[in-house]
């Protein structure tokens, strides 16, 4: 993380913080909020996939677990949304611990298969436990966020915008700090040369458990926020589509750079939302994103951040 990158991140944050003063319509703000949510999932995924080099394909399941934790707590147990949202982070972390148990010892493709199967298992559990989860229809009419009498939905989603931005900003700052810390350096060592890292006393298994849990917490929290914000929880959150969309954000942005996936998440969310408005593009937009991901992998494996980095001549990813 160079000085220029830090300045860039700060400038981006200030810019996004003043956006609501210029963008006053509810729909554009909604797209921003959704983009912040996806960006949070993407940057946290980048911690395990990009920085940690762990082939974790179950990351979106942590998001889904956050969604359903908040939804079930608020509907079945009447818990306040203010408690249900952070609770999503706790259940996601517990899920990460469980999945880390086998993953810590596995190699290569088996990590992909187990984490992927884990996401599908979550989907099957949600579908089969219909009494609690609403089954295929999901849960609807969750309570909305309020402070006193003030509803967050008022003033064209003003408050939701800042809460979503805050969750993303906290994630990015924490992840950048992790990336610079000795722990982050040891993660990269494990990624780039596992044998050498192990010979220098880094426990690969322990790193994997830590990185999975660390990447799950904010993902679960933002999942809880997503459920409360949209006031629905649907089993689609565990599906192929969201996973492919978010992984393409990580790859198009540049795996391992944290900032890159955040930028790509904003760009891709606006692009897919714009395409959703065009007739006949509802399905085709996912095809376009998938093609874009393949093209980036072929021409610029380091992602968009890498291209900018090379243009500016300012060297490597974090």
């Amino acid at each position, binding site marked *: 993380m160079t000085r220029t990158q830090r300045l860039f991140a700060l400038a981006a944050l200030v810019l996004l913080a003043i956006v609501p003063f210029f963008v006053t319509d509810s729909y554009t703000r909604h797209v921003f909020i959704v983009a912040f949510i996806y960006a949070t999932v993407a940057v946290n995924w980048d911690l395990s996939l990009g920085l940690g080099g762990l082939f974790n394909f179950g990351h979106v399941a942590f998001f889904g677990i956050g969604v359903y934790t908040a939804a079930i707590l608020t509907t079945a147990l009447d818990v306040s949304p203010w408690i249900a949202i952070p609770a999503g982070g706790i259940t996601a972390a517990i899920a990460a611990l469980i999945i880390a148990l086998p993953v810590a010892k596995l190699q290569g*493709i*088996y990590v992909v298969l187990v984490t*992927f199967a884990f996401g599908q298992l979550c989907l099957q559990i949600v579908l089969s436990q219909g009494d609690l989860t609403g089954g295929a229809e999901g849960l609807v009419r969750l309570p909305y966020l309020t402070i006193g009498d003030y509803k967050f939905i008022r003033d064209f989603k003003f408050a939701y915008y800042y809460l979503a931005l805050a969750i993303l900003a906290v994630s990015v700052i924490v992840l950048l700090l992790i990336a610079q810390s000795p722990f982050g350096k040891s993660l990269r060592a494990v990624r780039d040369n596992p044998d050498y890292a192990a010979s220098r006393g880094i426990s690969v298994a322990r790193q994997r458990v830590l990185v999975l849990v660390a990447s799950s917490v904010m993902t679960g929290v933002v999942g809880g926020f997503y459920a409360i914000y949209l006031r629905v929880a649907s089993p689609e959150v565990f599906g*192929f589509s969201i996973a492919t969309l978010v*992984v393409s954000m990580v790859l198009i942005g540049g795996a391992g750079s944290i900032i890159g996936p955040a930028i790509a998440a904003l760009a891709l969310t606006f692009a897919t939302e714009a395409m959703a408005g065009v007739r006949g593009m509802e399905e*085709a937009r*996912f*095809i376009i*994103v998938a093609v874009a991901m393949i093209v980036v992998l072929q021409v610029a*494996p380091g992602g968009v951040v890498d291209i900018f980095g090379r243009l500016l001549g300012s060297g490597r990813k974090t």
Partner: protein
Amino acid sequence: MDGVLIPTLVSGLLLGSLYALMASGLSLIWTTLGVFNFAHGALMTLGAYIAWTVTEQLGLGLAAGFVAGIGAAVIAGVVIELLLVRPFYGSRNMMLITVMTTLAASTIIERGISVIWGPRLKQLPRVIDGQVNILGAPVSAHETLIIVLAPAVLLALWWYTGRTRSGRSLRAVGQNQDSAALIGIDVPRTFSLAFGLSAALAGVTGVLLGSIRFITPGLGADPLVNAMIVVIFGGLGSLGATAGAAYVIGMMEALLVLWLGLYWTPSVLFVALIAVLVFRPNGLFGKVSA
């Protein structure tokens, strides 16, 4: 118990047969190229849709439909190999990159299918109508055909990879690409061959499944996940281990559904899977590491 046990075992055999067909295709590509094809389920779905179009819409009959469906899957499989896998040979992260590109391919095929065919459910006619009596339990003839056909296909595959020249070139390339090239094997052609063959297996599964389940754009998703569980259990190393694991999982699933019901079966299977992996990280029968 007798009245339930036989149908349960038959359904276990049926599931095992379908999983074996799916998983052996995945295993074939993995052992030859070291690529895990996430578009395998989508190829299966594509086969089923093409078969339906030729059979029902063009009215050319089921046999023509089967040939067209399997042929379409093969073409799509070879195209995936050429466009999405070949550019990354020799790359340090090839395994990971091809997971992403084949995942993207699966999105493209699935979404493409819903654009072309729409969301309405479709179904293929059965190959054989009527029922067969197996040990006093009535089983549909079509399902019996699948149970008989799957081991036959697997045996043919086993014979092909072990006894024929081009089949053995697949194994040679899987073991050592450089040496294979040195003794005159066309390695890139062999890669295409592996993808085409695997796609054919996906196509066969698709057309068989298309007449016992409704055909939707997501038809291949569930079988793919189950085939993944099979290859985790059996390891990706050999055809025999994969097929064995397929039947073990199929039987387990059928018995669990009988004892615990549909609700808890996936969870119990997954817990069993984690337990196997904690103690045997390369799968139940696996020796070759990834």
